[in-house]
C-alpha cells in the first residue's frame, strides 16, 4: 500500500483506527470525562469517513462538508451538556468515576 493522498484507502483506514481507539477508550476509561473524549474520537472518525467518501465517490462535494459541519455543531452541543452534567455529578458525589454512579435520584 503506497502512501498516496489521492486514494481513499488511507483516509478510510485512519477513520477505522480512530473508531477503534474511541471504542477502546469507551470500554477502558473509568472516568466520565475520559469516556467523553473517547466519544469525541468516534465523532471525528465519522466525520473523516464522510469527507473521504464525499471527496472520492460523490459528484457533489458540498454535501459531505455541510453534513460534517452539522456533526461538529452537534458534537459541541453534546459536549456542553455532558460537561455540565458531569460537573453536577461531581458536586453531588465528589467523584466522576463511572463506577460511583450507582444510585438513581441522587
Amino acid at each position: 500500500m503506497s502512501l498516496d493522498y489521492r486514494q481513499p484507502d488511507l483516509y478510510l483506514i485512519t477513520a477505522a483506527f480512530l473508531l477503534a481507539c474511541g471504542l477502546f477508550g469507551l470500554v477502558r476509561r473509568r472516568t466520565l470525562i475520559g469516556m467523553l473524549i473517547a466519544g469525541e474520537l468516534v465523532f471525528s472518525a465519522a466525520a473523516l469517513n464522510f469527507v473521504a467518501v464525499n471527496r472520492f465517490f460523490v459528484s457533489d462535494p458540498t454535501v459531505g462538508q455541510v453534513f460534517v459541519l452539522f456533526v461538529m455543531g452537534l458534537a459541541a452541543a453534546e459536549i456542553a451538556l455532558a460537561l455540565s452534567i458531569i460537573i453536577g455529578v461531581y458536586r453531588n458525589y465528589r467523584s466522576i468515576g463511572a463506577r460511583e454512579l450507582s444510585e438513581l435520584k441522587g
Partner: protein
Amino acid sequence: MNGIPGADRIIQAMFVLALLTTVAGAVWAVATRRIIRSVCGLALCCVGLAGLYYFLESPFLALMEILIYIGAICVTLVFAVMLAEPDELPPAENRRAAWGWGTVAALLSGLLFAGLVWLTREHPWPTAPNRIRLGTLHDIGVALLGRYGFAFELISVVLVVAILGALLVARYGRTRP
C-alpha cells in the same frame, strides 16, 4: 504546483505528517492515565485531522475543525477538568479484573479495526464520478442557506437549547447541598 523543486515530496511529507499526528493523538488520548494529557491528545488528533481535511480538498472544514474542536471543545474540557478535579484515579481494586477489561477492550477494538480494514481493502469501490461543483466556500454557503436551510436553523435551535440546558443543570447542581 511545479514551481518549487521537489514540491511533490514536500506535499507527500506533509500528508504523512498529518496522518501520523492523527494516529499519535488518538493513541495518546486513550492510552494515558491523566485526563489532562488525554485532552492534549485529543487536540493533537484534531490538528492532524485538520491537515487530512485539507488534503481532502475542504480547507473550510480544516479551519472549522481547529476552531470548534480545539478552540471550543478542548478548552471546555480543560475547564471541566479544572472544576471537577479528576485526579489520578485510585488503583483498581482488583488488578486482575482491570487487566481483563483492558484485554477485552483491546480485543474488541482490534477486531473492529481489522474488520473495517479488510472491508476497505476488499470492497470494489466505484470509480470517481465527474464533479458537478468544486465545493468551494461559496458553494457551501449557498447550500447552507438554500438546500439545507431548515437543518441549519434546527442546529441553531439545538445549540441554544444545549446552552440553556447546560446553564440550568450546572446552576441546579450548585444550589443543592
